[in-house]
């Protein structure tokens, strides 16, 4: 449903791919179609198998099982140097004994391209990453951000159909990182090259990607557009990992009418009454019946706090902390069973004081209901 619409469009396809390192199951039954010209991000915590997935596409690791297709062709018998993909490595991996020029010229010079053409293309690449003038430097005479640019130029000069990037901005400081994010995105749009981008920084993934595949323990938990993943997380892990979220555990008490107001086109969502450990709440969800164990995920900015109970809600809490951060106010509350709740809003009314008793509520369609079983991605 969230995959590439027509399969023929997929430039890279993983089909039932499994990867074992000894008895360590690193990638589990992965199915992924990457569309031509797309910016796809593999996002997940450390050790979830992002690099391994990328390395299988590049050809540095063999898939234990399953098939990988690049441009519709199976690649398992192709060596890395025969694949039409290029990689920007996590640690740049520039050749230390070569100048910037020779590093960037490496690809075409291997292919016996005429000298004059190489010169032209290197110049074009270095201009593009704003590194002209550095041709004669050695990599150890460059800053992290400059090395990064050279690594990108070196990978792009071969004009690959697909560029694989493994946490390319991981070693940069925050400011440079933000700047490079914008530049990379601009470059990708301009060249129309498919980017498969690995990061464990969810903010980076949100700002750059066309689609995000959220991974956990070698499984893609959810794949979709950033806004979709943010608004409609399918598992508790995704809700927790992407942005800030308040997650309440509970049981569906009764299932109400169709709402048709859950934001998406599907009219199947119903208003659910859910009992929590510390009260009762309402939320919209599809395909649930009374007695189901569920998680309710609510973003801090979707929460409402009031002195009176709202209809369908009975969730008392007390204010523990308020932090004013310029335009945004962050407020921490605690429910009766001790769960911490994050609440943020733009108004700066000083109506909430510490240890004040309030009621929590939200618009039912702003909350996401996740079946408790879906926490284990394997079960699907």
């Amino acid at each position, binding site marked *: 449903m969230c995959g590439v619409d027509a399969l023929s469009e997929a430039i890279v396809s993983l089909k039932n791919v499994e990867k074992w390192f000894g008895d360590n199951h690193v990638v589990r039954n992965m199915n992924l179609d990457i569309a031509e010209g797309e910016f796809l991000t593999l996002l997940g915590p450390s050790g979830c198998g992002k690099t391994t997935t990328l390395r299988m596409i*590049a*050809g*540095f690791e063999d898939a234990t099982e399953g098939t990988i297709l690049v441009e519709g062709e199976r690649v398992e018998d192709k*060596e*890395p*140097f025969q694949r039409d993909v*290029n*990689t920007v*490595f996590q*640690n740049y*991996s*520039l*050749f*230390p*004994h070569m100048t910037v020029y020779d590093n960037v010229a*490496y*690809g075409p010079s*291997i*292919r016996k391209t005429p000298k004059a053409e190489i010169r032209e293309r290197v110049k074009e690449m270095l201009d593009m990453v704003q590194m002209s003038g550095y041709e004669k430097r050695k990599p150890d005479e460059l800053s992290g951000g400059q090395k990064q640019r050279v690594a990108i130029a*070196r*990978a792009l000069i*071969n004009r690959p159909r697909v560029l694989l990037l493994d946490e390319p901005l991981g070693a940069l400081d925050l400011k440079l990182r933000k700047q490079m994010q914008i530049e990379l995105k601009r470059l990708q749009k301009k060249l129309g090259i498919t980017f498969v981008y690995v990061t464990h920084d969810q903010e980076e993934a949100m700002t750059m990607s066309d689609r995000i595949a959220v991974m956990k323990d070698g499984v893609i938990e959810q794949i979709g557009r950033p806004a979709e993943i943010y608004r409609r997380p399918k598992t508790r892990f995704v809700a927790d990992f992407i942005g800030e979220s308040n997650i309440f555990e509970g049981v569906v008490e009764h299932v109400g009418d169709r709402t048709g107001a859950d934001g998406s086109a599907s009219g199947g969502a119903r208003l659910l009454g859910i009992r929590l450990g510390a009260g009762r709440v309402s939320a919209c969800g599809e395909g649930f019946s009374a007695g189901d164990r569920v998680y309710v995920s609510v973003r801090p900015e979707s929460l409402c706090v009031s002195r009176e109970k709202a209809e369908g809600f009975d969730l008392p809490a007390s204010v523990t902390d308020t932090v004013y951060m310029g335009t945004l106010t962050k407020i921490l509350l605690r429910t009766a069973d001790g769960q911490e709740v994050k609440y943020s809003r733009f108004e700066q009314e000083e109506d909430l004081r510490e240890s004040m008793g309030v009621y929590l509520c939200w618009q039912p369609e702003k909350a996401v209901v996740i079946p408790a079983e879906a926490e284990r991605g394997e079960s699907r």
Partner: protein
Amino acid sequence: MKKKDRSRLPMLAQTGPVSVWMVLFVTLPLLFIIYISFMSRGEFGGVVYEFSTESYRTILDPMYFTVVAKSFRVALTTTLLCLLFGYPLAYYIAKKPPEKASRLIMLLMIPFWTNGMMRLNAWMLFFQMNGPVNYVLTHLHIVEKPVMFLYTDWLVNIGLFTNMLPFAVLPMYSSIEKLQKSLLEASYDLGADRKKTFFRVTLPLTFPGIFSAIILTFIPALGTYTVTDMLGGGKVLYIGNIIKNQFGAIRNWPLGAALSVLLLVITALLIFLYSRFAGIEDLEVV
């Protein structure tokens, strides 16, 4: 003032004894050798302390020149053999998991815990007229009569090669082992096959190890006299034997000293070249 002295003390305490040792046992003897090389030879051997460049003129004598040239040839052959066999061996070991690699290195070093003379004697027994090699060769009718292997340049080369191989392998191993795998992957990724990757990435980046191997094999091979004495039987002359003989039997100390100075200059030259091209800090002396 006092404070300054005290801060200097630890450094002096650390480097002092070593410096004294070096000056006493390396620098002074070296200077003495250079000094002697410019003196004259006594009528009954030994040194007469009169300035003379006779020893150096003697070296230019064609006879000595042939010996020097031959020593160079043998040392060069040994070095080339060591690189040719040592590099693949070092590469093979470096690609093994660390535990296995250290076991292989151990295996390589074990022969060196036996006495050097014993090892050379073993080679002689192996290659002598009625030794196993000749036995096999004659019985397989590869040769009619036993071959005289002993006292040939050929056997000297074998002896030197086996003697020097570990010293070539160790520095090359350590620089191959240090080579980052991701650099090779980057090269493959950019379209270079294994051969191109080897010549454009692996070889240049392991050059410091190769140069160390050259120094560590060429210099000892040039100056050796035990191997050449025994396997060459003293019949074929090398610079090392001549130096030894000048100080020993022939007692022409100034000539021996002059030849030593020649070796020193060559050594210094090689190390200078190395520091220019590879950076002295990369010198892989194990």
